[in-house]
C-alpha cells in the first residue's frame, strides 16, 4: 500500500479491508464485553487492537500502527494477561446483575449515546479531505518527530514524567515491605496453640482414591466438603471444585442398601446435614 494511495483516496481494496476487519473488530469488542472469563475477554481485546493497528496503517499512521502492535498488543495486553493469571485464569464472572436496573440503564445509555454519536458524525460536514500526502512527505516518523520535539516538546517531557511516576506508583502500590521480622516456625506453632485452633497442619485436599487434584476440597466424615483443605489462593479465586454431592449421593445409596438389608425404619436413619453450609 503506497502512501499516495492512503492519502488521497479510499480504494476499493481499503473498503474491502475496512468492512471485513471492521466486522472483526466489532465482534472482538462485543466478545470483550460479554465473555464470561477474563482471559477470553483479554484475548478478544487483543484481536480488536490488532485490527485497529491495521486501520492505523491504512490511515497513514505507520508509526502508530507499529506502536499499537508492539506496545499495546505486545506489552499492555500481556500485562493484563499477567494480572488475570494472578487473579485466577479460570475465574468466571457471573453475568447476573446485582444492582437493580443497572443493566437496563447501561443499555439505554449505551444505545442512546451511540445513536447520538453516530448522528453527530453523520450531521457533521466532513466532506473535505486533505489526505496525509504532504504531511508524510518526509516520512511519517520524521514528521511526528519534528512535531514532538518542537511544538509538543513540553507535553512530551511531561509524559516522560508521567511514565516515571506511574512506574514508581505501581511499585509502591504492589510492593509490600516487611515491617517486622518474619516469625519462626516455633513462634507460629506457639501462636496456633494460643489461638486454640488447627493445632495440627491443615488437612490435605482431595478425596482419597477418587480425586487428588488440589482444587478439590477434602470431605468430612459426614460427606460434606471442608474448604480448609484447599489452598488459600484457590479459595480466594473461588476455584474450588465441589464433589461432595457425588460423595453424598454415594453415601446415601450405601445407607439405602444397608437399610434395605437390615430392614430398618425410615426415620431411624442418621440425618445427613451439610454442616459447613449450615454454619455459613
Amino acid at each position, binding site marked *: 500500500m503506497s502512501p499516495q494511495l492512503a492519502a488521497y483516496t479510499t480504494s476499493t481494496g481499503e473498503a474491502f479491508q475496512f468492512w471485513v476487519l471492521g466486522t472483526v473488530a466489532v465482534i472482538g469488542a462485543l466478545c470483550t464485553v460479554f465473555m464470561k472469563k477474563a482471559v477470553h475477554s483479554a484475548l478478544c481485546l487483543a484481536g480488536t487492537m490488532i485490527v485497529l493497528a491495521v486501520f492505523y496503517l491504512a490511515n497513514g499512521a505507520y508509526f502508530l500502527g507499529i506502536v499499537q502492535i508492539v506496545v499495546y498488543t505486545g506489552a499492555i495486553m500481556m500485562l493484563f494477561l499477567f494480572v488475570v493469571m494472578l487473579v485466577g485464569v479460570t475465574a468466571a464472572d457471573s453475568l447476573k446483575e446485582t444492582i437493580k436496573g443497572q443493566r437496563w440503564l*447501561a443499555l439505554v445509555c449505551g444505545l*442512546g449515546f451511540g445513536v447520538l454519536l453516530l448522528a453527530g458524525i453523520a450531521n457533521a460536514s466532513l466532506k473535505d479531505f486533505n489526505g496525509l500526502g504532504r504531511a508524510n512527505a518526509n516520512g511519517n516518523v520524521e514528521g511526528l518527530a519534528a512535531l514532538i520535539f518542537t511544538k509538543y516538546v513540553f507535553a512530551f517531557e511531561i509524559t516522560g514524567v508521567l511514565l516515571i511516576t506511574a512506574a514508581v506508583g505501581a511499585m509502591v502500590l504492589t510492593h509490600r515491605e516487611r515491617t517486622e521480622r518474619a516469625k519462626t516456625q516455633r513462634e507460629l506453632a506457639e501462636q496456633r496453640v494460643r489461638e486454640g485452633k488447627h493445632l495440627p497442619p491443615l488437612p490435605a485436599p482431595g478425596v482419597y482414591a477418587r480425586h487428588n487434584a488440589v482444587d478439590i476440597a477434602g470431605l468430612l466424615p459426614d460427606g460434606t466438603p471442608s474448604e480448609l483443605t484447599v489452598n488459600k489462593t484457590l479459595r480466594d479465586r473461588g476455584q474450588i471444585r465441589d464433589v461432595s454431592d457425588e460423595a453424598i449421593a454415594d453415601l446415601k445409596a450405601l445407607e439405602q442398601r444397608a437399610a434395605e438389608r437390615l430392614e430398618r425404619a425410615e426415620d431411624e436413619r442418621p440425618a445427613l446435614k451439610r454442616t459447613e453450609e449450615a454454619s455459613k
Partner: protein
Amino acid sequence: MENLIALLIAAPLLGAAVLLCGGRRLDAVGHWIGTLLAGLSFVFGALLFADMLGKAADHRTVTQHLFSWIPVSGFQADVTFRLDQLSMTFVLLITGVGSLIHLYSVGYMEHDERRRRFFGYLNLFLAAMLLLVLADNYLLLYVGWEGVGLASYLLIGFWQHKPSAATAAKKAFLVNRVGDMGLSIAIMLMFTTFGTFAFGPVFADVSGTGEGKLTAIALMLLLAACGKSAQVPLQSWLGDAMEGPTPVSALIHAATMVTAGVYLIVRSGAVFNAAPDAQLVVTVVGAVTLLFGAIVGCAKDDIKKALAGSTMSQIGYMVLAAGLGPIGYVFAIMHLVTHGFFKAGLFLGAGSVMHGMNDEVDMRKYGGLRKYMPVTFVTFGLGYLAIIGFPGLSGFFSKDKIIEAAFAKGGTEGWILGGAALLGAAITAYYMTRVMIMTFFGEKRWQPDEHGHEPHPHESPKSMTIPMIVLAFGSVFAGGLFSFGDRFLHWLEPVTGHQEGHPPVSAAVVTGATLVVLLVGAGIAYVQYGRRPVPVVAPRGSLLTRAARRDLLQDDFNHVVLVRGGEHLTRSLVYMDHTVVDGVVNGTAASVGGLSGRLRRLQNGYARSYAVSMFGGAAVLVALTLLMRAV
C-alpha cells in the same frame, strides 16, 4: 466681648470634664471646683449683662460664630451663639440660681461619698442649659435640649442603688424623648419648608409660608415643650423626678430645665404668631396643666411631690401666657424668672427640712418645725407668700399679669382661660397653705424610724442657709423690681414683641378677684389643717383625692396601655422572630435536608452506578450540543 459667650458655656463644661474624669484625687476639692466654675460662669454672664445694658435697645443682640458643625450640601448647621435679651435673662437666672444651688449642695451633699460626681453632673447641666438658651439655631438648641435631659437623667438617678430612683430617671428620659421626637420633627419640617433651621432666616421667612405647615411646626414644638416642661399629656415624669437629691429638684425641676419649654415657645414666637390654631392648643395645654398640677399638689403628702405638682401648675401658667401670643410672652418669662426664685427657695427649704429630719419627706410626720429651724421657716414662708401671689411679693406681679392677659384673650376663650387661671390661683393658695401648715405649724408628729432613731430637727449649716436667704430676697423683691416702670417689659420687648392686652373687665377687678380667691383658698386650707390636728396616717379621702394621689391616674393609664401593651408587643415579636422569620428559613433548610435525604438513596455507593450517571450525563450533554447546533 462676644467671645465671652463661648466661655460662659466652657467654664461649667470644663468643670464637668475635670470632675468626671478626674477620679478620686479630686474628691476633696471637687465640690469647690464645681462651685467656682459655676460662679465664674455667673461672672461672665454679669459682665455680658453690663455690656448689653450699655448698648441701645435695638442693638443688643450679639452672635458668636464658632465653627461649622455639620456641613452637608444644603444642610448647614453651625455652632453659633446668640445672646439677646431673652437669652441674657436666662443666662443670669441659670448661672445665678445655679451658683447658689452649687453652694447649697456643698452642705447638702456633704456626707455623700460621690459628691464630686454630683458636682460634675451639676456643671454638665449648667453647660447644657446655657447651650440651650444661647443656641442660634434649632439643631444646636436640640443639643442643649437633650443635654439637659441627660443631666436630669443622671441627677434624678444619682442615688442609683435605689431602684425607684433608677426607674424615675429612666422614665424622665423616655418621656422627654417623646417630646424630643416632636422637636426633631419640627426641625425636619423647618428644613423642608425653609431650607434652614437658624432662628433668623426661619423667623424672617414665616410670612411667606402656608399656615398649615406653620401649625404643624408649632404643634411639634409644643410637643417638645410638653415633654421638657412636664405639661399634659407628658407630665408624668416630674413627680417621680423628685427621687433625685433636693438641690437637683430645685435647680432642674423647678427653676431652670423644666422652663425650657416656655423658652422654646417664646423663642419661636414668630412661628406661633402665624399659627393661631397652634396657639389655641398651647393655651389649652397650659390651662389644663395648671389645674392638673394644682389638683395633684393638693393631694400629695410628700413635700417634694407637692412642690412638684406646684411646679407643673406654675409652668402651666407660663405656657398659658406664652400661648396668648405677644400679649403674654413677656409675662410668661417674667413669671418664669420670679418662679425660678421662689420655687428654688421653696425646694431648698424643703431640702433643709429633710436634712434636719433624717430625709423624711412625708409632711404628715413633720409639724411645728418653725421653732427648730427658724431661718428655713422664714425663707420658706417668704417663698410661700410669693407663690400664692401675696400682694407686693414677686409672684403677685407676675401671676396677676398672666391672669389679666388670659382674660384679655377675649371672647369665650378669654373667660374660660381666665377663669381657669383664677381657679388655679385659688387652688395654689390652698395647697401651699396646706404645705406650710403641715410642715411648720401644729404639733410635732415625727416618729422614730425603723432603726429607732428619733429625728432631731436642727437648722442647716451656713452653706445651705445663705442660698436660701438670697433666693428669699429674690422671691420678695424681683417681681416689684421688674414691674415698676415696666422695666422687664421694655427690656424684653425688642426680642419677643409686645402688645397691650385689654381685659373685658378692668385690671383692678381682676387683681381684686385674684386676691379674693387667694384668701378663700388659704382660708379653706387653714380650716382643714390649721384648726384640727393632722392625722399621721393619710385618711382614705374622696375619689378625687385618691385619684390625685396617683397623679390623676395618668400613670395607671401609662402602665396599662404603654408598659403592658409594649411588653406584650415585644414579647410576641421576639416569639415571632424566632418562629416565623427564623422559622421560614429553618423550614427551608429542613425541607432541603429532607429532599437530600431522599436523594441520598440514589447514592448506593457502587462505582458502576456513578458511572452510569456520568455516562448518562455525557449523553445528555452530547444531545444538548447537537440540539444547539441544530437550532
